[in-house]
C-alpha cells in the first residue's frame, strides 16, 4: 500500500465467518475525503439510508459506511487488497 493510501487508514481488520470479509477502518478525519475519492474512482451502484454506499470497481464489490468503514468482499490476499486500495484512494 502506498504512503498516500496509508494516510487514510487507521486499521485493517479481518473478520471471522465463511465470507472472509475484510474491513478497512478509515481515520475519522479522513473518511469524507476518502468517500470523495471513492466516488471519483469507483462506480456507485446505489445508496441505502445515506449510510451505505454500494460500489463496484472492475471485478470488485465493496461497501462504504458513513461511520468510516469500507467492507471488501471476496479479497483473497493482502497484495490484492493493497493494490485495490491504492487504485481507489490515490
Amino acid at each position: 500500500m502506498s504512503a498516500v493510501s496509508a494516510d487514510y487508514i487507521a486499521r485493517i481488520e479481518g473478520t471471522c465467518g465463511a465470507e472472509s470479509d475484510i474491513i478497512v477502518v478509515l481515520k475519522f478525519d479522513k473518511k469524507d475525503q476518502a468517500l470523495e475519492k471513492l466516488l471519483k474512482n469507483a462506480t456507485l451502484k446505489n445508496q441505502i439510508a445515506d449510510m451505505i454506499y454500494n460500489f463496484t470497481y472492475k471485478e470488485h464489490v465493496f461497501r462504504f459506511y458513513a461511520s468510516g468503514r469500507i467492507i471488501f468482499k471476496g479479497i483473497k490476499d493482502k497484495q490484492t487488497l493493497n493494490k485495490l486500495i491504492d487504485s481507489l484512494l490515490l
Partner: protein
Amino acid sequence: MVDFYENNNANVHRGVHALSLEATEMYEKSREQVAQFINAKDVSEIIFTRGTTEAMNFVAYSWGLNNLQKDDEILVSLMEHHSNIVPWEIISKIRGFKINYVNTNPNGTLNIKDFENKLTSKTKLVCLNHISNVTGVVNDIKYLSKIVHDYGAIIIVDGAQSVPHMKVDVQDLDADFLAFSGHKMLGPTGIGVLYGKKVLLQQMEPFHGGGEMIKDVTFNFKNQQCITSWNELPWKFEAGTPNICGAIGLAAAIKYLNHINMSNIFAHEQTLTKYAINNLKNLNKITLYGPTDSNRCGIISFNITGFSSHDVALFCDSYGIAIRSGYHCAQPLHQILDLQSTARASFYFYNTVQEIRRFIEILQEL
C-alpha cells in the same frame, strides 16, 4: 476498584503490613461473595481465573490430563463455544481418549436423544454450556447432570451466558465444575471464576506452579532436588499474584446485581427477548435462529438476505448500536446449522423495549 488502588493496593497473602492485610481481606471477601452468589457449599470451591476460557483450560489440564486415558470417552456438545472444545481436543491428542460430539436439532436446541445415545459407561466427562452464546438456548443442566452422574461421569458447565442473566445455584444444578467471566456481568475484564466441587478440586494437581500455591519447597541437598507440597484449597490453584482488583471489581458487580435481583433481571430480559422475536420475525428479509418458545434467553442471532453479518453489524454501528458478527467463537454450530456467519444482538437488564424498537426500525432500512 478505584478505592482499592488509591487506598489498599498491595499484594495478597504476602506481607504482614497493614496494606497487604487489607488487600487480602478485600480479595477473600470477594471470593465469599462469589460463593454466595452461585450458592457454592464452601468458599474454597471458588478459584479466580482470567475468565471462562482459562477456567476450561484449567479443568482440561489439571483434571483431564490426570484422569482421562486411552479407552475413555468424553461428550462435548456441538453448540459449545470454542473454549469448551479446543482444550479437550488438545488434551485428547496427548492422552488418546475419544471425544464424542452431541448433535443439535435444526432449531439449535440440544438433541437429547443423541446425548443419551452417546453417553456410555466409557464416558468420564460431559462438557456443556448452560446457555448457547449463539442461539440463546437454555440447557436443562439439572436434568442432564442427573443422567451424567447416573453413568458415573462428571459434568463441566460453561456458565458464561447464564450466571450474568439468571439465578444459578451450583448445588441445585449439581454441576461438578462451572465457569464464568466477570466482564459479561458488569465486572472488569481479566477476571473469571472456576467453581469446582471440593472433593474433585482436592484430588486435582495444580494447573500453574509458582508462589502462593505451595506449602513447602524443600531442597534436598543429598539428592539435589526440590520437594514440593501444595497449599490448601483454593490457593493451591492460584499461583503468583492474582488479579486482586479484578476480583474486588467482580464482587462489586455481584453486589449490584444482587441489589437489582437476579429474578428481576431474568424476567426483564425475557420480556425484551419476547418483544424482539415477535417483532423481528415480521421483517421481510430476516432469518432468526434458535427456538421461538420461551426456552431461550436474550441472545438473538440472525441474518438479513443480501447482507453479510458484518455488513449488518457495520450498518448498526453507524447508528451507535453494537452487535456482534461472525462465528461468535462457535464455528461448529454454524457448520451444522449451515450458516456462513450470523449477526447477534444480545440484551442485558439495562436495555429497554424502546431501544429494541429503534434497533428494529434501523434493520428495516436494509
